[in-house]
């Protein structure tokens, strides 16, 4: 079961932490989202952090900064960050930034609710 936070849901299994994000990621929301994610990451210290982006409706360059920051934090604690199920919009901006080349991305183009392995 996912534990519901106000802008993300968390599921934990051994060293795996799956965080499903909701809504819009812009500069306005990124500040608290960043703090909450970092608190969670530093508490759980997962080896593998999966950020499920399938329910993100909007993301601009503030989201790129947010993803990059968490990617670095995961590296710092000896883990990896994985982006899961980004929609075509998110892929477009990830590609533009070049982040798509070095970040692990799974389930590109997959539909939001189906084949939800974390359920």
């Amino acid at each position, binding site marked *: 079961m996912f534990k519901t936070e106000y802008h993300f849901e968390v599921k934990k299994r051994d060293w795996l932490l799956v965080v499903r994000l909701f809504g*819009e990621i*812009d*500069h*306005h929301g*990124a500040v608290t989202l*960043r703090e909450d994610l970092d608190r969670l990451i530093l508490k759980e210290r997962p080896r593998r952090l999966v950020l499920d982006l399938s329910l993100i409706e*909007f993301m*601009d*360059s*503030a989201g*790129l*900064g*947010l993803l*990059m*920051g968490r990617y670095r934090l995961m590296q710092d604690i000896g883990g990896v960050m994985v982006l899961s199920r980004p929609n*075509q*919009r998110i892929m*477009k*901006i990830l590609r*533009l*930034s070049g982040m798509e080349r070095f970040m692990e991305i799974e389930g590109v183009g997959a539909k939001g609710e189906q084949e939800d392995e974390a359920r």
Partner: protein
Amino acid sequence: MKQDKRFKNEINRMSLQMPAISVNEGMARAAVAAFCAQLSPDATELADIKCAVSEAVTNCIVHAYKNRKGKFYITVSLFADRTVQIAVQDKGCGIPNVKAAMEPLYTTDAAGERSGMGFTVMENFMDRLHVTSRQGKGTLVLLSKRLGRSTEEE
């Protein structure tokens, strides 16, 4: 002048003025998207416009006024040939070197976890981006996109 000819074909216009506070990032892009819907953009075009507006407005809030009090001004013009033109203006600190600022990954605020991709997004998601700025006076970002021409790979 080219501008004058285009002006005659302007079919609608909206002007907005908002305080430079971050909650207005979402408000501004939603308002612009709603207004642009008159030209029946496809989903990709509308998402491109929303993202570009979000970038320009966020820059006013984060950089121009550095979270101090100020306002930003948006004018959206719709033209008969389905061109959308959006001006986003601030009266903030200005950009000393616009050319450098527009380079991908360039940011003056690395501590704030910026990717330095705002102008690159505007440039790629719109047909045209033009930036004019004067130090101590402010910045004007002009964005335009002609609808119905997307050669989307998606």
